[in-house]
């Protein structure tokens, strides 16, 4: 089987729009969470959100290229440009090779809402314009980027709730491992507009610590009261080792495990068993021993129930190794469909620069998190291997393990 390596990464998030800025934010424990009054006025229970800048791509792309792009497709364009640049892949290489794209995305609410509003007002479907359909479809990111970058390999979107980005990388990993593709643009994207999160807010999942926005996301902390919605996009370029070597590319890491499972129970409540099966499947692929993992970037979103189950699962697997753990969602909020991909980018940054990003706002543990080695402050520490968990509604679980490349 082919070894699968990562040769490029890019990020557009609430803690930075470049690898360098995000590195500093991660090290300093900088929060990207704000209170958005527009959400309160719109009827949200919580106005907390990650603050992500929506770019104007008029200088970068033609009208036809831009007109079908949803908010999250714009984010993904920027993260993908960064990732391709870091990988040393130019348009000529994309034109001459069968490069694929697999992106995680699970909604495109604003485009759908705007189209329906127009049709209701005008009583005429034509008046939504030609770009609406391409903004509205769930595959809006892979559809737009495959067209812009003229990609000729595999091309679709993976929708697995808050594990979408992680599954996209995992499926790409399997395809390359099997020799079916040589190089795939993988990632996750998440819209941040108010239409995207209204119904999520409606089930009471979000933190209402509105008087202290930067302290609201507190995974594993005893006083956590919910997640904070966030978004943006993250891209990694994965390819076979032979392809990377042939190109002379710098290798950022090697994917050595992709675990997946389904809880087989409740639509929103997680369970320990499903998470454990995903963790163990990933570890089995990478050699089976939990002690190879130097750092775990937990899924932990700051919800009372979700974090408890993950703490129990992590303790069962990593407890005897006292493995360093943090949740970068303490700074970014929950980047949802994007999170599984962005947290691989965050892990790559930490592995390259030798530090563990903090689980900010972890002030008092609860009865489960007290058993874990959670880093409340950033710490310089060599990382040769990290694990990233992503769990989603419907009981979908995904775990990725990335190691420093050793030939």
């Amino acid at each position, binding site marked *: 089987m082919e070894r699968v390596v990562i040769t490029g990464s890019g990020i557009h998030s609430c803690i930075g729009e470049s690898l360098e800025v995000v590195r500093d934010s991660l090290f300093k424990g900088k929060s990207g969470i704000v209170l958005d009054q527009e959400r309160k006025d719109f009827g949200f229970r919580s106005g907390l959100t990650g603050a992500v800048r929506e770019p104007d791509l008029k200088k970068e792309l033609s009208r036809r290229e831009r007109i079908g792009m949803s908010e999250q497709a714009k984010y993904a364009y920027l993260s993908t440009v960064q990732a391709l640049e870091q990988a040393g892949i130019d348009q000529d290489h994309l034109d001459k090779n069968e490069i694929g794209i697999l992106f995680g995305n699970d909604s495109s609410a604003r485009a759908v809402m705007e189209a329906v509003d127009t049709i209701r007002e*005008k009583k005429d479907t*034509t*008046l939504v314009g030609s770009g609406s359909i391409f903004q509205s479809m769930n595959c809006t990111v892979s559809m737009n980027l495959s067209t812009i970058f003229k990609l000729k390999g595999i091309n679709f979107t993976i929708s697995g709730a808050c594990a979408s980005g992680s599954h996209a990388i995992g499926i790409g990993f399997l395809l390359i491992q099997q020799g079916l593709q040589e190089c795939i643009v993988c990632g996750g994207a998440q819209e941040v507009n108010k239409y995207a999160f209204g119904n999520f807010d409606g089930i009471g999942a979000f933190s209402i610590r509105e008087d202290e926005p930067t302290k609201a996301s507190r995974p594993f902390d005893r006083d956590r009261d919910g997640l904070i919605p966030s978004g943006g996009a993250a891209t990694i370029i994965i390819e076979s080792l032979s392809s990377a070597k042939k190109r002379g590319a710098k290798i950022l890491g090697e994917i050595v495990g992709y675990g997946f499972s389904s809880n087989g129970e409740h639509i929103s409540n997680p369970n320990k068993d499903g998470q454990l099966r995903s963790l163990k499947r990933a570890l089995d692929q990478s050699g089976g021993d939990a002690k190879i993992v130097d750092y775990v970037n937990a899924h932990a979103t700051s919800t009372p129930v979700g974090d408890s189950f993950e703490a129990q699962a992590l303790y069962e697997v990593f407890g005897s190794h006292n493995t360093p753990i943090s949740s970068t969602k303490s700074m970014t909020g929950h980047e949802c469909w994007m999170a599984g991909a962005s947290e691989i980018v965050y892990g790559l940054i930490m592995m390259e620069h030798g530090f563990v990003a903090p689980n900010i706002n972890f002030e008092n543990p609860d009865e489960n998190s007290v058993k874990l080695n959670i880093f409340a402050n950033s710490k310089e520490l060599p990382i040769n291997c990290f694990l990233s968990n992503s769990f989603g509604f419907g009981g979908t679980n995904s775990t990725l393990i990335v190691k420093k490349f050793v030939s």
Partner: protein
Amino acid sequence: MSKEEMIEKINGFLIEEFEVDASVIKPEASLQETLDLDSLDYVDLVVVIESNFGFKVKGEDFIGLETFQDFYDYIEERELAKA
């Protein structure tokens, strides 16, 4: 609105929507070639006409509208019909 004002208004939204330089718009120039219109772009042309003049253009109405002058004349005709 005089015809000159109407032409100025039309040119303004065509320049903005289709992102072309004002200098390329000439009465005798080809509408389709100058604005580089494909089938999807005609949908957007329907949208900008409706938002600027308040009437809906059917796809088949574009048949025979070769030049900008044809387009101006068509819009004028529809505007006069409204009155």
